[in-house]
């Protein structure tokens, strides 16, 4: 299926450049890993909904590292989709100069204009307000954040981020591998969870820091979790009896690449992704962890050799 055909009635009409009719003149700046993101072109209702969704991460104005401009699109541009039993995956079309994104009631593009100082995103949607609008915006922000972190030599990782006693553990694995189950087990033992869906990794000196992102899974936003914590270990989750097996550098790197959403589907930035992830994989020990239901997982994590 060609790009966008799943979501758009006429994929050939995908906007060729970031232009169109704004929803309004309101803007909000979100403090997200990778630097403040200015979301502009909003109506008053859209701004209010974003502030409700992202809460304390919102502020007015100030310098931004990335920008997202929002434009109107007619509802007729988008296909109606029966979502029963359907797993939602954004359709991406990367190219050397940018990225096109199609999804449910959204078209977006990221561009790296020559000489531009910051990554620029544009979003076209027909969603004027409410949860549908914030979902469209959040889905676009996830992509934007992944690319922004990559620009900085970091990564957004599909993972559960566990923290406690001033250190962090990143649990990797595809959907169904047990990230949310593992997060719940650790919570029961007194650990905290940054996110059970997406966490950021950024380099700091010889080490790595795990940074909380406002993109969560089944557990929702975990109040009280630290915003950032030094990473102590990477763990690839697998099913089976309790076992801890060290991963080779290549296995750890492969695990991180597989868990770096959006950017790992971009062949034009694969070298940049490997450049970013290789030092991250080398900076902390990596293990494959299998655990049974009801395991005292947090105790297992704390006992991992340094």
């Amino acid at each position, binding site marked *: 299926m060609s790009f966008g055909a799943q979501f758009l009635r006429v994929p050939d009409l995908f906007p060729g450049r970031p232009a169109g009719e704004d929803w309004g003149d309101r803007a909000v700046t979100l403090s997200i890993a990778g630097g403040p993101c200015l979301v502009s072109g909003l109506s008053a209702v859209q701004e209010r909904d974003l502030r409700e969704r992202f809460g304390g991460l919102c502020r007015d104005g100030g310098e931004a590292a990335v920008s997202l401009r929002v434009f109107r699109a007619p509802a007729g541009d988008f296909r109606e989709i029966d979502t029963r039993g359907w797993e939602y995956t954004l359709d991406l079309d*990367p*190219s*050397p100069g940018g990225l096109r994104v199609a999804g449910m009631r959204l078209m977006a593009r990221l561009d790296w204009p020559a000489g531009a100082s910051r990554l620029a995103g544009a979003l076209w949607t027909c969603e004027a307000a409410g949860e549908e609008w914030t979902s469209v915006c959040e889905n676009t922000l996830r992509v934007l954040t992944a690319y922004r972190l990559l620009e900085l030599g970091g990564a957004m990782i599909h993972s559960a981020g566990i923290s406690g006693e001033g250190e962090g553990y990143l649990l990797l694995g595809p959907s169904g591998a047990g990230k949310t189950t593992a997060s719940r087990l650790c919570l029961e033992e007194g650990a905290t969870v940054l996110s059970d869906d997406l966490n950021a990794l950024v380099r700091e000196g010889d080490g790595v820091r795990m940074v909380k992102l406002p993109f969560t899974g089944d557990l929702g936003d975990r109040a009280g979790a630290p915003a950032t914590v030094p990473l102590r270990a990477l763990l690839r989750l697998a099913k089976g009896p309790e076992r801890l097996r060290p991963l*080779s*550098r*290549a*296995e750890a*790197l*492969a695990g991180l*690449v*597989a868990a770096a959403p959006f950017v790992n*589907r971009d*062949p*034009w930035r*694969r070298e940049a992704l*490997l450049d970013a992830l*290789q030092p991250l994989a080398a900076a902390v020990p990596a293990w494959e962890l299998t655990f049974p239901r009801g395991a005292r997982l947090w105790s297992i994590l704390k006992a991992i050799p340094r």
Partner: protein
Amino acid sequence: MTTRFEALRELAREAPVEVGVRGDCMAPLFAGGDRVRVAAARFYVPGDVVVFRAAGGGLVAHRLLGYRLHAGRLALVTRGDACPAHDAPVPLAAVLGRVETVRPTLAARAAALGRFLGLALSKVRR
């Protein structure tokens, strides 16, 4: 660099990896800017387009013509469809996978094998 390639091989074993094409070595099959999906396979057959790590570290997608012994081990003999010469022997350990979207016909496989035999015969004559 080995770690990076090993990681890519791990990924290609699990699911196809998308690779961007640069250059015109495989014209008209691929043009620069195309994207191809690469998957690891247990066997590679003449006519397959295989992606491997070249001596410089970059990835190359060329047609598999056949096999030969090199430094006591089996190696692939490859060549770009639009290239005038074949490549240096490619160790099996340097192969990432084959391009999924290319399904060579029997005639295309026979043509690749014919090129390989022609190459072998020319070496024998020398």
